[in-house]
């Protein structure tokens, strides 16, 4: 096996396992939000995009309406549409079946792996191996987390309550640092979203403040967009 090929395989399996283990946190958080293990598993198996999964259960867990929960999940899911556009020239999925299958695994990690691979053949390999490893691990650990959390007592549940916001912070953090597009603007957008959500909390049904925060920040950014 060429060094490039074994390096690509190692990266794909390693990232798939590392991120896949994080499904424990999702399964546990889903249980804390009041979902049963089947609902958690359907999210991991069908939705299969972590940030959207966390957003859906985050809004439901806060007592939010299903509509606000679905809206949050879809807003975060738009990212994958752009990833798909970037992946088409690399993966060239032929025919509707290939395309439908490939689409299911288009997420942050598989996109990063494919774009980092040294050539087109290895990009396809990285996508498949990374996607398969992550998919299997993520779904297995989701079930472990959901079943494990259901058996927790008061103190462990308090721990879990603290893990969920920390998980969102950990998802947010890399977007605010250098190496991202316009980190200063990202930080302003994040601060704006947090302030609006907190300020609206006493006045709107739970969950609505999350979607409202996004809309408010988008509207605040509009004049600059029109001028550009």
């Amino acid at each position: 096996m060429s060094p490039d090929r074994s390096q690509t395989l190692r990266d794909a399996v390693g990232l798939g396992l590392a991120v896949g283990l994080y499904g424990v946190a999702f399964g546990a958080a889903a249980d804390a939000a009041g979902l049963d293990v089947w609902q958690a598993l359907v999210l991991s198996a069908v939705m299969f995009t972590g940030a959207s999964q966390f957003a859906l259960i985050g809004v439901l867990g806060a007592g939010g309406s299903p509509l606000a929960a679905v809206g949050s999940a879809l807003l975060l899911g738009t990212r994958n549409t752009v990833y798909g556009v970037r992946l088409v020239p690399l993966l060239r999925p032929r025919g509707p079946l290939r395309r439908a299958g490939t689409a299911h695994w288009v997420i942050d990690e598989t996109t990063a792996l494919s774009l980092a691979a040294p050539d087109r053949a290895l990009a396809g390999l990285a996508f498949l191996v990374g996607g398969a490893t992550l998919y299997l691990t993520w779904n297995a650990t989701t079930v472990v987390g959901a079943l494990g959390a259901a058996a927790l007592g008061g103190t462990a549940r308090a721990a879990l309550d603290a893990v969920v916001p920390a998980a969102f912070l950990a998802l947010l953090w890399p977007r605010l640092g250098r190496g991202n597009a316009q980190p200063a603007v990202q930080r302003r957008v994040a601060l704006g979203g947090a302030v609006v959500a907190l300020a609206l909390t006493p006045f709107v049904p739970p969950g609505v403040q999350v979607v409202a925060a996004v809309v408010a920040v988008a509207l605040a950014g509009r004049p600059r967009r029109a001028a550009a």
Partner: protein
Amino acid sequence: MSATWTAVLVASVGCYLLKLAGLSVPASWVEQSWVARVVDFVPAALLAALVVVQGLTSGDEVVVDGRLAGLAVAALALALRAPFIVVLVLAGAVGALVHVLAG
């Protein structure tokens, strides 16, 4: 069907269709400046809103408890470039500690 199941299924299918759209539509549809802006900045606003809602609210009230202490420790750990799982374990430990101390 319960409202939760409906939300789970609708959002799951919706997210899948968003992925499929990326592989199906002409690149020019997606590579417009306003689409790029939305995709670049929506996650930051949404995730930040979820951090405060999950960390500081309960129903329609703003509540300060062990979750905030957990968030502070998580932020410190992230600033020190701790791995994901370490961040979560530390936040959970602090949340549990506050629960026991406030018990």
